[in-house]
């Protein structure tokens, strides 16, 4: 027997449909889902703040990242003693440094602010490279199929067996020493002078790109395979569209969602890779500040001056949080079916 509540519920359906019919593209829908996710919004705001901090670092930072005042080495501000009481008695106090100074008297706060540049550059360029290489590779493999597909995927399988972090380290050592003194005018000279200008970041990008594309290639191939036989692709074939056109106009737009989600979720891994590399001394060239390198330096003196390791560590953790929150939110927004699967 139908009750009043049933009617009310049934009656609410057309209203929903009407709302949906207001001509919302799936992107608007996704956007709405994204902004209604509190964690994702917090992540997004944090990312924006970090980007602003990186871009306007020279305006915000009280000093430059390389300014050394040797007499001020290991200075700590007064407020820190109440947080880290163990430092009382031996730590030299100077309120000129908000978070303290490092072992050669560089301002920690300024270096942390400038350090955001490296982490964020990796966060944006890493996905770009791995998308570019991985999507091209994966879509060629999936689209043409057959023997080519088999061969290309076997290559990826072999690459997978390389411990990726160790492979990057080997690559970095190779770059750093091979291209250390190249002939002027050669390609490697252009590369290494560009790298020097970027504070050593170029090689990090190449290293991350060299290992990160494989996951992307596999994912893209799978996605291409799943839409390759769809009717609209067949229709495009029938009207005589070329392979390139079918790939870019018909296949890619339909698989881009999961790829973007996968890349966003991979951003923390890229940030971490750079931090690891800098931590072991194969990352950015000093004195370019990187949080990984700062944590490494700080770890040496964590017993006496814990602030030198803990503050950059907190900065790195906050950045990782922000990108994780944002990535999770994007995944839920773009593909609600995937909710909570990663």
């Amino acid at each position: 027997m139908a009750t009043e509540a049933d009617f009310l519920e049934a009656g609410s359906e057309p209203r929903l449909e009407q709302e949906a019919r207001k001509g919302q593209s799936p992107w608007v829908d996704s956007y709405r889902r994204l902004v209604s996710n509190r964690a994702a919004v917090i992540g997004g705001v944090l990312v924006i703040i970090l980007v602003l901090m990186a871009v306007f670092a020279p305006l915000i930072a009280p000093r430059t990242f390389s300014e050394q005042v040797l007499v001020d080495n290991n200075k700590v501000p007064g407020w820190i003693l109440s947080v880290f009481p163990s430092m009382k008695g031996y730590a030299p106090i100077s309120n000129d440094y908000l978070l303290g100074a490092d072992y050669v008297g560089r301002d920690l706060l300024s270096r942390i602010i400038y350090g955001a540049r490296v982490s964020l550059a990796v966060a944006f360029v890493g996905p770009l490279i791995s998308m570019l290489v991985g999507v091209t590779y994966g879509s060629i493999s999936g689209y043409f199929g057959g023997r080519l597909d088999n061969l290309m995927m076997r290559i990826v399988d072999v690459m997978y067996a390389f411990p990726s972090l160790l492979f990057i380290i080997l690559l970095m050592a190779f770059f750093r020493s091979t291209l250390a003194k190249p002939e002027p005018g050669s390609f490697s000279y252009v590369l290494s002078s560009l790298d020097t200008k970027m504070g050593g970041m170029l090689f990090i990008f190449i290293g991350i790109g060299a290992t990160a594309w494989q996951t992307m290639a596999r994912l893209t191939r799978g996605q291409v395979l799943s839409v390759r036989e769809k009717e609209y692709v067949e229709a495009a074939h029938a009207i005589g569209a070329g392979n390139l056109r079918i790939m870019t106009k018909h296949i890619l737009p339909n698989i881009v969602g999961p790829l973007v989600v996968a890349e966003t979720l991979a951003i923390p891994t890229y940030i971490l890779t750079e931090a690891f590399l800098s931590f072991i001394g194969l990352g950015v060239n000093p004195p370019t500040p990187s949080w990984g390198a700062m944590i490494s330096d700080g770890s040496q003196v964590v017993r006496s001056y814990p602030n030198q390791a803990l503050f950059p560590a907190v900065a790195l953790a906050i950045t990782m949080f922000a990108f994780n929150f944002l990535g999770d939110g994007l995944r839920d927004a773009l593909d609600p079916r995937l909710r909570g699967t990663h």
Partner: protein
Amino acid sequence: MTRFVIRRTMWMFLVLLVVSGVTFVLEHSVPGGPFDQEKALPQEIIDNLNERYHLDESLPQQYLRFLNDVLVPHVSTVPPGNSLQDSAVFNFEISDGRWLKWMNFGPSYASRSRTVNDIIRDQLPISAQLGVFALLVALVVGMPLGIMAGLRQNTVWDYMGMGVAVFGVSVPVIVLGPVLVWIFGVSLKWLPTNGWGAQPPYLLGFLPRELDANFIKHAIMPSVALGLGSSAIIARLTRASLLQVVREDYIRTARAKGLVERVVILRHAMKNSLIPVVTILGPLFAALVTGTFVTELIFGIPGMGKYFVTSITNRDYPVIMGTILLYAMFLVVANLVVDVVYAWLDPRIRYS
């Protein structure tokens, strides 16, 4: 199944062969040699050293020699440990004064009194122990969190569990390491801040001889620092797969026929929801073993890790080769084991 395992094992060897080849080419294309020093050695000495370590041969010859040393077992009358040249990872005594030796990764150029085999025998077990303990931490923390969150979806437990999981993925070992050292090592003085509680020789080649308080005390911080990130991955995966499984028809059937909730969850839901978790254990363990080297740097653990970075800067070819191949071996073997366990757990999967 047997055919599948055989085929995969052969593929595994092929992969390792390619990995060794690529590593060989890469390491030799880095300029500079193992005997370069601040104060250059006389050319005659370098020539003699090159001859002694067979570096004067052509690269293909060197590579074939390496493969031969590693793959082909040989019988020797030199007792193990007495020679830097005639050394091996595995030594079996066949009769009086004769040993069957297998897998010789060669000498280390940097520390002239040790071979890569010695490093593998003494240092690798430490890294492996750390990796296993970290995996234990990951499982012990991750699975209950995931199960709790999955069974009580959208409750405080769920949010708490997933909050911990986000914390886990966002706080890498280079952040957590110094923080833990500062809290538990420096401020509270509960745990030692560096070192490892087990020394060679090891039980069965890799187990610590005794699991005493000293060992646990040394192992606890590095394992937690390394394992927490993986526990987050396990928690999220367990939750997701549990959520999927409890919506399956067979769960409804189990409830409909009047089974107690406990039995439904434990026997029907849990068993099936653990399959994806098993599949990720392989790559996860491999990642943990690779991750050990950063952890070892932070906590001052005398494992395999420090050799990785130093060998590259020293151009210590045999050590580079040995470490990369070992880690790659961990990776492929872990994946093989997972595939086999997967097939065994889920009868729907049949490899042909």
